[in-house]
């Protein structure tokens, strides 16, 4: 202590070299900190020691290799703060400023990009075998991650989610197709307005259908957090689902949490229901499958819960004619295909598929069978080595022309999924294909009915209304609701029989 009542602190830092210009700036910065009366940070050269002594400090023995930190404070209480300011100022002299015009080397790992930007979210779409490592980079620095990649080994998913759990971060995925955070669509996602619903979804296209219907009812969301198809399995035990529910519960703007998933394993379902009861926000489970409400009914339940009116779900185009023949479903969304199959099976018997409801009706590689056929062109085995049908329509269009030439086919059901990440103008290629399909049938003296679900929101970049109108004009009956589209397709078939 000095007599004047101020507090003096002098310390030597051996080997902490910095150049004199940098240290001048450090001294200046530290001197400006509240509570600091005087500050000198310098290498302990004779000249500098003289200067510091001249400021009235008492100095210990020092060598020119030492850095001297000399502080005079109004009170000892401010010492910790002042020393922190010294460290910060020294660090600042070494910080890389983005403005310097040296060579820019691209980030080669997520870790590197996170370090450079401080981003709080990483989107991973590498091959599945490498996704875990990139995701771990995010978890390590406390950032959330969405893993779009599929084919991530189950044991890696478990290890990753346990690691995330211990660090309080959220892992969306693997195989998570859709998420919306702060209005930002990640992966295949729709433009959504802010609103009271928070969604946790284990199914990408299931989530998109819900988003499309809520948007049409003028209901927005706080977030739609994807968790990946395996999260609610007995292996993963809903680690991400719970974290996502926690996040939504803590958000004062979320009035209702909706969990969209296939029915979870029994013990996970029980655990999740008990967990939901601990939250202060009501939770609605929209479980998909036979004997469960379909996605449209789930959306209606959400609206009812919010006290919102359920609108008449829109459709575009002329009603297609009924007739006798087979139904062919050509889908890009797995959950939409599933939903249609469940509805069709209940009304028109077994459905052949590459993702069949029962193994007895698995399609072979010809993708043809007698009876109702529904194909998910977005399934893993169909997308190997080629882009997803939501991005590139080629494979579905080829198949459409094939089924149009099949005299046994009477009704075609398809989904068109809009939003970020998807084909910028699906109607642009599908409308001509629909016209061509009708022409093929007519040339053959037949009629073909084409029913579409067009899943999108009013703000989507493709413009929902325009897409639907173009498709309707081409000769399709277009519905916002996939369940409605499916019901219509079944009606057209039924009334024929």
């Amino acid at each position, binding site marked *: 202590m000095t007599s004047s009542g101020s507090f003096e602190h002098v310390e030597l830092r051996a080997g902490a070299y910095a150049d004199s210009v940098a240290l001048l700036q450090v001294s200046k910065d530290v001197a400006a900190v509240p509570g600091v009366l005087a500050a000198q940070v310098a290498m302990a050269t004779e000249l500098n020691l003289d200067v510091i002594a001249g400021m009235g400090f008492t100095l210990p023995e020092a060598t020119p290799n030492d850095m001297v930190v000399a502080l005079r404070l109004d009170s000892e209480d401010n010492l910790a703060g002042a020393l922190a300011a010294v460290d910060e100022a020294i660090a600042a002299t070494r910080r890389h400023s983005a403005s310097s015009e040296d060579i820019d080397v691209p980030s080669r790992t997520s870790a590197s990009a996170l370090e450079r930007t401080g981003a709080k979210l990483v989107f991973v779409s590498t091959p599945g075998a490498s996704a875990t490592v990139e995701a771990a980079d995010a978890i390590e620095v406390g950032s959330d991650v969405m893993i779009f990649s599929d084919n991530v080994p189950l044991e890696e998913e478990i290890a990753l989610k346990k690691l995330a759990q211990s660090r309080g971060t959220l892992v969306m995925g693997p195989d998570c197709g859709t998420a919306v955070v702060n209005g930002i669509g990640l992966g295949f996602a729709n433009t*959504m*307005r802010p609103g009271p619903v928070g969604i946790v979804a284990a199914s990408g296209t299931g989530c998109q259908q819900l988003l499309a219907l809520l948007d049409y009812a003028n209901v927005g969301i706080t977030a739609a957090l994807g968790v990946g198809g395996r999260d609610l399995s007995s292996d993963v035990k809903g680690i991400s689902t719970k974290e996502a529910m926690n996040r939504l519960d803590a958000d004062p703007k979320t009035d209702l949490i909706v969990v969209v998933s296939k029915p979870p394993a029994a013990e996970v379902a029980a655990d999740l229901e008990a967990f939901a009861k601990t939250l202060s926000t009501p939770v609605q489970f929209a479980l998909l499958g036979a004997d469960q409400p379909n996605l449209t009914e789930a959306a209606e339940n959400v609206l009812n819960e919010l006290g919102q009116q359920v609108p008449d779900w829109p459709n575009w185009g002329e009603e297609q004619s009924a007739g006798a023949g087979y139904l062919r479903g050509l889908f890009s969304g797995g959950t939409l295909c599933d939903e249609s199959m469940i509805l069709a099976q209940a009304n028109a018997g077994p459905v052949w598929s590459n993702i069949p409801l029962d193994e007895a009706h698995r399609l072979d590689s010809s993708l043809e069978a007698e009876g109702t056929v529904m194909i998910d062109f977005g399934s893993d085995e169909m997308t190997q080595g080629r882009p997803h049908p939501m991005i590139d329509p080629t494979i579905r269009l080829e198949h459409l022309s094939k089924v149009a030439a099949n005299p046994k086919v009477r009704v075609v059901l398809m989904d068109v999924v809009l939003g970020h990440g998807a084909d910028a103008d699906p109607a642009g290629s599908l409308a001509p294909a629909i016209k061509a399909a009708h022409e093929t049938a007519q040339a053959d003296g037949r009629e073909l009915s084409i029913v579409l679900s067009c899943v999108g929101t009013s703000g989507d970049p493709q413009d929902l209304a325009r897409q639907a109108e173009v498709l309707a004009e081409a000769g399709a009956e277009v519905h916002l609701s996939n369940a409605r589209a499916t019901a219509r397709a079944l009606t057209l078939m039924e009334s024929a029989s």
Partner: protein
Amino acid sequence: MAIGTVVAGAAPVWVADRIRGQVHQGIVLHAGSDAIYFTSHDDVIGIVSSQATPIPCTISTRLATLDGEFSASGLPQPGDLVTIGAGFVTIADIQVRVARLSDYRMPKFAPNSIAITNARLRTVAGESLQSTELPAELINDFRVEPAESVHLLLGRGSGLTPFGDDVTCGMLATLLATGDACAMALRERVLDLAPDRTTSLSATLLRRAAEGDVLPVFADAVSSLAQEDENASERIQRLLSIGHTSGAGMLLGFSIALDHITLRSCS
């Protein structure tokens, strides 16, 4: 920036709806490196750089500065025509579209959290609530009878958003969020007076407050107080750094609203 370039931005729903709707024209009110403001019907809409704080009438772009991006024909001049509608705002050769909808909603408050929130506000930001711009008597009148005294605040003070308007925005949004009995009367009075009493930008923000929309920094700050967030102090500081006195005005309005709810209710 090349001719025909489309710049993407994030905006509140009402701005997106306006831009998606009927084509109409407005005029540029102000153009600087971080913000271009123009009229659209009775409202004012801004296109802002990534450096500017989003407010409930801006399209926030990721452009570091608008200067460079609008340089093909230079920054527009006040009085220049702007075309709004059919999906775009068009200024000279630049088109701006809304690619994302941002949340400007005021968070809801549980009535039982008001007293605690108010106490925490005094602890964290007591000093910043000492207004030198408004007489104590006026603040008191506004607290007791908001609808009856708001005409004395609107348009009072300097700047594009006069201090009295900032206070009113904070007060109105808070009363609406808490469902206070006086909220609707105040709202009607504000909607009634705003077009004539203040700048058109400020009138736009008052109308947004009447719809429950506030600056995200304001929403963050007040919800961090209500949620016992450890970052409350930092968030309050961020709010106070907005504009010359805008952030402080909104916080004062919030404080008056909490006092109003605690001490007195409308008949």
